[in-house]
């Protein structure tokens, strides 16, 4: 006789397998399809309710061309993946605010963060974020360093990061910063340190 808890376990795992397969097929479908999705203009999701936690956000400032670390208290879910998404949404909320220190295009959002491989984080951003992003080496690298450093500082164990746009690989963010490879979290950590030094 097979105990009942095994049946439940199997059903849950089979459902997970099915969900992952569907997700992978959708990702692949997106990579193959060439039709341009309309830009996503959803408002930034409000932070999930729950107990608040202290985190460090690395915020870009265009006027001085620097990153600055800010301590913030935000409500974070307990699931690692959702925590990652909420962290980045809190950061985007700063950039989308009227008094933004580093304006990002209206409607910029995180479609999802996937912590797939041990040490690999995939950040999937929407088209609005990339299509309207300001062009320039420093402008683009401030954004990328801010996102990755915030993620790897608050979510332990991230060694490399891939940034996708609408589920697809993109050559550059806005003509400069390379999105075709994997970012080395250690390298970005050093870059973040350089960007925190005043010029």
């Amino acid at each position, binding site marked *: 006789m097979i105990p009942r808890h*095994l049946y439940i376990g199997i059903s849950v795992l089979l459902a997970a*397998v099915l969900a992952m397969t569907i997700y*992978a097929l959708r990702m692949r479908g997106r990579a193959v399809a060439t039709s341009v999705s309309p830009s996503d203009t959803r408002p930034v999701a409000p932070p999930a309710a729950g107990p608040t936690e202290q985190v460090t956000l690395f915020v870009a400032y265009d006027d001085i061309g620097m990153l600055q670390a800010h301590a913030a208290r935000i409500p974070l879910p307990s699931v690692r993946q959702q925590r990652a998404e909420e962290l980045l949404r809190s950061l985007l909320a700063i950039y989308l605010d009227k008094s933004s220190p580093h304006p990002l295009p209206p409607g910029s959002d995180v479609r999802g963060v996937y912590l797939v491989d041990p040490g690999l984080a995939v950040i999937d951003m929407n088209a609005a974020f990339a299509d309207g992003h300001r062009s*320039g080496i420093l402008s683009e*690298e401030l954004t990328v360093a801010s996102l990755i450093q915030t993620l790897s500082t608050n979510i332990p164990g991230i060694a490399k990061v891939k940034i996708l746009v609408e589920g697809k690989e993109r050559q550059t963010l806005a003509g400069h910063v390379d999105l075709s490879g994997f970012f080395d979290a250690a*390298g970005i950590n050093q870059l973040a340190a*350089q960007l925190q030094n005043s010029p």
Partner: protein
Amino acid sequence: MRWSSTRSSARALGIIIASGILFAFAAFLVLAAAPQKHLSVYSTAANYSLPIVQRQGRDYVGLLELLEPLGSVSAKFDSRRWRLHYNNILGEFTVGESRVRIQGREADLSAKFFFENDRGLVPIDSLSSLLPRILGGPVTLHVESDRLLIGSVGTHFTAAIAPEDSSRLVFHFTAPVNPSVSTEHGKLHMTFSREPVLAPASPTLTFDSKTITQAKFSESNGAAEIDVTTNIPLMANFSPDGQTITLEPSKAQTAAASNTAPPAPPQKLLAPSPAPPGAVPSARRYFAVVDASHGGSDSGETLSPSLAEKDVTLALARRLRQELENRGIPTLILRDSDANLSLDDRAFAANNARAAVYVAIHAASSGHGVRLYTALLPYADEEDDGPFRSWSTAQQSSLGASQAVLASVAAELKKQQVAVRGLTAPLRPLNNVAMAAFAVEVAPPGLDLSQLASPDYQQLTMSAVANGIADVRAQLGMAP
């Protein structure tokens, strides 16, 4: 009894579940990260690669994108009709139809024409009949391996055991090559993705040697590969002209007993060894390569409504070349017109020039003064010996030299009272360049953006950059 049978069935189920998860995870990784197929194109003008898209089970490629690096091309689309001009040739394509007209003469594609997102897509297996009508010359399509050769390009090779030493295998190529090299037990692979290396008369060559028995040529997925079968660890040595590759027992093998020898390179991946700066001064035509970033359809940043980055970078690059040549430094400029040039093309041309220093020029509206960048290399997985690994980290061994040039240039800019900042950046093609390499991002001196186009400001900044390079020329292998 009953207990143990429950336990073994639970264990069996556990194994099934675990393998199910592993399978699903592997499928997820494979599907999510399935690399896109590419068509590699080789011509005398440029070598480049284009993404392949699948339509109705066939491989297609954008025709305009294919022709762009080869000549002047433009296209117009109105109600199902796509009219493409290449130099003086007119091609007419109709959505959903395979019949096309080239200079008024009808021809048939193997499948229907698609038009999507401003791209006219033609089936790849029709290129060998379609392109000669447009280009007016022969093309060779290797349809199984997605390689397209335009005109009489093609690199041939011979392979022979060295007469004086049967543990060495010498390849000679008719043009410089820079393959990525990897080894696994009993095999050494050389992958040529950027050169049109062609098959020898027989794809499998056998040798009369105890240690190296055969070399096998194959091609797939836009690249050619030579697999060498061996029973000892081999390393690849490149001649300065890039036309001869000698495979010989790796130093780790021969110098194992000596503890004074420098550490041997890891046998897992013996990176191609581009000529180190200064090693072959006589073979060097250019000391510096100046790259006017962006160009053609890539305008770079719109600095102001009337000022595109690509125009400022071209003006700055021309000035820098002049300043370097005034200091006796032979300089190659990579873009001297409003041309499209891919990042791979730029890296390829720079590496091919075998110069000592590469400078990418950018301009930006944000901030002020000049920012200098060396490469921030992508994550390099020790486990990943993929053919592009050495390409994406070709800069690795030159980073020290790059930082030295950056420091020298920064000092010269400071002398001219220009605000300067040195950073790293994940910026291609810096990471693909196998020599000292840095990028210069010129921002206006103050709030006035029009200063970016001012000859005085351009002169001030570029002469300082030239001074910085000239100051370290001896370090980079040029007699002062």
